[in-house]
């Protein structure tokens, strides 16, 4: 049982999976749980489907956390998001409207093998744990392995590099599983949100080139309103804009792939902080980080429900 689960603490993979089972069992009116495949080391890739089953067809939002193993605040936010959704469904008209009108597919830990490794062996591990037989190095960067300008600028062909793009596009089972899931639901899914750390940024396509996306005005205004909402909580400032110019050019990213696959609103959050603690953001900052990010995510979601 996961009664009294502490959302202001970091949890191991086993604890997060137990939590998912518990939420699935205790909130069956709002949550269903399924696996979209297996990781390289054979672990299930669990997704929680969140939303009121009111009508057969509803638009959806995809949220993933933990693509990079050492960025622990990501999975902490995904858990916080699910908790807030079920806790406030009856008390918050905004959340109720969102959950009645949309589904959320939430993947709390994308890179399950890497996350487990960062808890047990190397706290600062980033990549997956796949093994390229010809090299002694492990893992590929799960955010350079998507089939969009794969292994072009901003990714490395060398298996020992942190931005190694993998043997081929979607070579990483975790990426393949998520891409297959998203491909099958491209008409239903209207937003893709991916949570990373650290830098305090809200990024949108493109990562792989300096160019404006066709629906720039809608995506940019949603991003601006989201960081204003975020800042209203504790005054924390996020920068926002196209990833290629705000951060750096990188190819094969999940956000670019989601956008090119037809999802009109694709964002990547780089959560707190800007480097004082980095990946070691203390547990005392989980709550404020998640509270402010909730405001941004709800803002983006409301934007999607309206016509832009």
């Amino acid at each position, binding site marked *: 049982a996961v009664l009294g689960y502490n959302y202001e*603490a*970091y949890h191991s993979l086993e604890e997060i999976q137990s939590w998912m089972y518990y939420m699935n069992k205790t909130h069956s009116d709002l949550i269903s749980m399924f696996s979209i495949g297996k990781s390289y080391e054979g672990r299930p890739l669990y997704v929680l489907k969140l939303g009121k089953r009111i009508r057969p067809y509803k638009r959806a939002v995809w949220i993933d956390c933990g693509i990079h193993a050492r960025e622990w605040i990501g999975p902490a936010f995904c858990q916080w998001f699910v908790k807030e959704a079920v806790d406030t469904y009856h008390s918050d008209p905004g959340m109720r409207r969102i959950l009645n009108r949309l589904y959320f597919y939430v993947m709390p830990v994308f890179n399950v093998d890497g996350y487990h490794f960062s808890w047990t062996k190397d706290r600062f591990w980033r990549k997956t744990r796949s093994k390229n037989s010809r090299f002694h190095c492990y893992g590929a960067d799960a955010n350079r392995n998507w089939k969009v300008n794969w292994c072009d600028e901003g990714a490395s062909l060398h298996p020992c590099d942190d*931005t190694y793009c993998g043997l081929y596009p979607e070579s990483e089972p975790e990426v393949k599983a998520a891409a297959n899931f998203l491909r099958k639901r491209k008409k239903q899914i209207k937003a893709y949100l991916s949570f990373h750390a650290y830098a305090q940024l809200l990024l949108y396509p493109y990562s792989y080139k300096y160019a404006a996306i066709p629906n720039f005005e809608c995506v940019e205004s949603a991003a601006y309103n989201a960081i204003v909402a975020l800042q209203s909580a504790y005054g924390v400032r996020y920068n926002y804009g196209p990833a290629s110019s705000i*951060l750096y050019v990188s190819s094969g990213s999940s956000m670019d792939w989601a956008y090119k696959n037809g999802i009109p609103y694709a964002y990547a959050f780089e959560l707190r902080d800007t*480097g004082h603690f980095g990946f*070691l953001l*203390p*547990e005392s900052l989980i709550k404020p980080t998640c509270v402010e990010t909730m405001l941004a995510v709800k803002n983006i979601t409301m934007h999607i429900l309206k016509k832009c």
Partner: protein
Amino acid sequence: HLYNNLYAGDKLIRLSPKNDYEVIALKHMCQQFKVDLWQPSSVSYITEGTIVDVHITRNSSQALLAYLQHTSLQYKVLISNLQNLIEKQIGVQSLRNRR
């Protein structure tokens, strides 16, 4: 200790190269000392003005800091002992588990 005290004495330092010479010196340092880059995520992203956060191990910090002095690269120590922060970050957690 968590992770068998693997990170005792490891540091996180911050640099921001101000010109081409410093960019080259910093890239050379990252390759020579096999450092763990926290940001940006790859050496190839290091350009003038980039904020570079580097995790250096206890064993290499003496030689690496000497290299920084030799190349006059300005740096700031963000975290002086990673192990302590790790213990703080989830130490409470493992304490809870034990309880």
